[in-house]
């Protein structure tokens, strides 16, 4: 927790591991349509990699990857992507999240479903990652901070 307890083995190992965890999280997000996984799991895994960096290399250096002030905007952006996809299909004549009303030309019905689910999963993963990191940051600030 304090800056006096930095361990070079921990720092090196976590800095080496974090990109691979993030790459696997991206695979989980984008392959979630076909296999196990999806937006929530991939987002939680992205958040876990950032929390690992927060714990090992310290808050100030891990903010190079994800700033503390990004938590609420990125979470809101993820929720906006999710709700916006649904509301867009609603505006274009379908029902909420009825993917084949999405305005992408030259795509078949099945491709539109895949694209819609991909949009949903990107939104969910952004929201989950940002909110989990924001919860951690808020706890670290302790009572009295805003």
């Amino acid at each position, binding site marked *: *927790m304090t800056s006096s307890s930095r361990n070079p083995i921990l720092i090196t190992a976590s800095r080496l591991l974090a990109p691979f965890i993030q790459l696997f999280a991206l695979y*989980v997000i984008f392959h979630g349509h076909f296999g*196990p*996984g*999806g937006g*929530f*799991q991939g987002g*939680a*895994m992205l*958040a*876990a990699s950032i*929390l*690992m960096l927060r*714990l090992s290399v310290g808050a100030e250096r891990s903010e190079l990857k994800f700033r503390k002030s990004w938590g609420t905007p990125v979470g809101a952006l993820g929720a906006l992507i999710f709700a916006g996809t649904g509301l867009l299909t609603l505006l274009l004549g379908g029902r909420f999240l009825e993917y084949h009303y999405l305005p992408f030309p030259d795509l078949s019905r099945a491709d539109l479903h895949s694209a819609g689910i991909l949009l949903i999963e990107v939104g969910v993963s952004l929201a989950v990652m940002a909110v*989990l990191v924001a*919860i*951690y940051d808020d*706890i*670290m600030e*302790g009572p009295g901070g805003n």
Partner: protein
Amino acid sequence: MYLGLETTLGVLLLASALIALRLKNLLAAAVTLSVFSFISALIYLVMGAVDVAFTEAVVGAGITGVLFIVVLFHTSRRSID
């Protein structure tokens, strides 16, 4: 089909839960709770619920363990036992 494996994992699950309850050191108890979560993810995996196992492994062993440890560093043990 995997009765021996399920029994072994169930015994390990019970053991880790009891150890986490009995430990006085709260940091060790939080780590043991992560072990509990990971073993329950393995049980879900044996039972065929891959998606649930994935969620349990990521959230239980990753996020809640970190949050427990952070909360432990922000609290102090007032009572003397």
